[in-house]
């Protein structure tokens, strides 16, 4: 799993490529921690277009990010999931918790 971040204006985009599973925990948290403390960032976008697999631990990680983002007063969006990942998010009914586009 490769994770990179880009900040444009007040939006921090976290780009993810590969399998989003239990092994990604540390790296994922490291990728958003700094952005949450950054006053110049108002929104965090997680770009899922490169993610080919998402499991329940990944769902758990997204829930953690959601809680932390809300506590930091930042907006959060999940972006561009491929059909397989979109289906997993749908079964989990995550659209009730996240803005997904």
């Amino acid at each position: 799993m490769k994770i990179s971040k880009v900040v444009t204006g007040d939006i921090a985009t976290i780009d993810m490529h590969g399998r989003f599973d239990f092994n990604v925990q540390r790296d994922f948290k490291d990728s958003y921690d700094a952005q949450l403390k950054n006053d110049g960032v108002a929104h965090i976008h997680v770009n899922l277009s490169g993610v080919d697999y998402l499991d329940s631990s990944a769902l758990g990680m997204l829930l953690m990010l959601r809680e932390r983002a809300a506590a930091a007063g930042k907006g959060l969006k999940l972006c561009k999931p491929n059909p397989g990942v979109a289906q997993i998010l749908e079964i989990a009914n995550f659209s009730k918790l996240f803005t997904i586009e």
Partner: protein
Amino acid sequence: MQIDKALTGDSRGLALIVDDLPANRKLLELLLEQENYRTIYAEDGSQAVKLYKEHHPDIIFMDVMMPVMDGYEAARRIKTVAGSVFVPIIFLTTLSEMDGLVKCLDAGGDDFISKPFKREVLSAKIKAMERIRDLSRRVAEQHQKIIEQHNRLLLEQTAAEQVYNRAVTSGNIESAHIQSLLRAASTFSGDMLLSACGPDGSMYFLLGDFTGHGLTAAVGVLPTAEVFRAMTVKGFPAQEILISINSKLHRVLPTGMFLTACMVVIDKQMKHATIWNAGMPDVLVLGKSTADAEVTVVKQSVSSKYLALGILKIADVLPAPVPIALEPGCRIVMCSDGLTEATNIAGQEFGKQRFVSAATESDNSFRSVIEALEQFCGTQPYADDLSLVEIECVSGLLLAGVEQRNK
């Protein structure tokens, strides 16, 4: 072969000297005695290997050129026999043999000392070898301790799991018309099946899948079971039971952990079933085809409409599902994603289609699905806890419910 010259006091260990020339052996013997080592000797490589096996010396000094078997071959063989035990081998070389030094190390030698021997050099090299040897022994001891501890933990876990499972599943409705399989990926399953009868005769079923597997996943099972049992015995409606379980888990589970579940409530006359699906694969209601009574079809497929339990403070349970009419003999089949996501050796998932296809193959969906799954996955181990439940809505099930209530 001369064995064992005993010294007074504690020796540092036993040294094996391998050299075909008696003069060389004698010299080294004297030096080693001064270093407080007991000595034995061999005249060629073959004797050296034999003596190693018999006496397990702590250090070996090996000449290179010898009849019968040379030092390189002897070193190779001794290292093989020693296995994971570190026995330092110091080659005895002459200046003209310096080119062969690489050969020494390749053969398994740990160091070399050139003749004529200088006492200080020999002493320093022995100390260095002892340091490595002691380190190696410590590692081996620790390794052994880790293995023993691991085995003890496994035994404890297995015992705990048995107690745990009984605590959770005792109280479930027992009936031949309820077939279930809960297969844990390792000890402790994060999947759970709970069933109970209400005071009015209705039957509740809850199949749940905690995030992860193993002990961390199973921790949520007991509190959930407690809430379930306490509320079903009082006849609380399913919605309220789900709300209570959600509250409990929201308090107990850390953020990021949750319970996906499906709950089925069958009314006391078995006319309707209300099915809630929060994050699980589709729940299937199977019955006979209207066109052909021999064929099984999916009458209803209930997909996930609610958020998993434990995420939100206030449970997501609205709008309530519409009750489904049950034909006599129809079957309700639920499974956890460990089943639909089980992979074969090529990495393909069993998937929803194969699941539905196997379930509609016969009038014993439970058996058909398991057969199809085992055939698909072969010897590939299951990465996640998996579960499969089939409820057959026949009068025998109602009777089991009555019996359960009267217990």
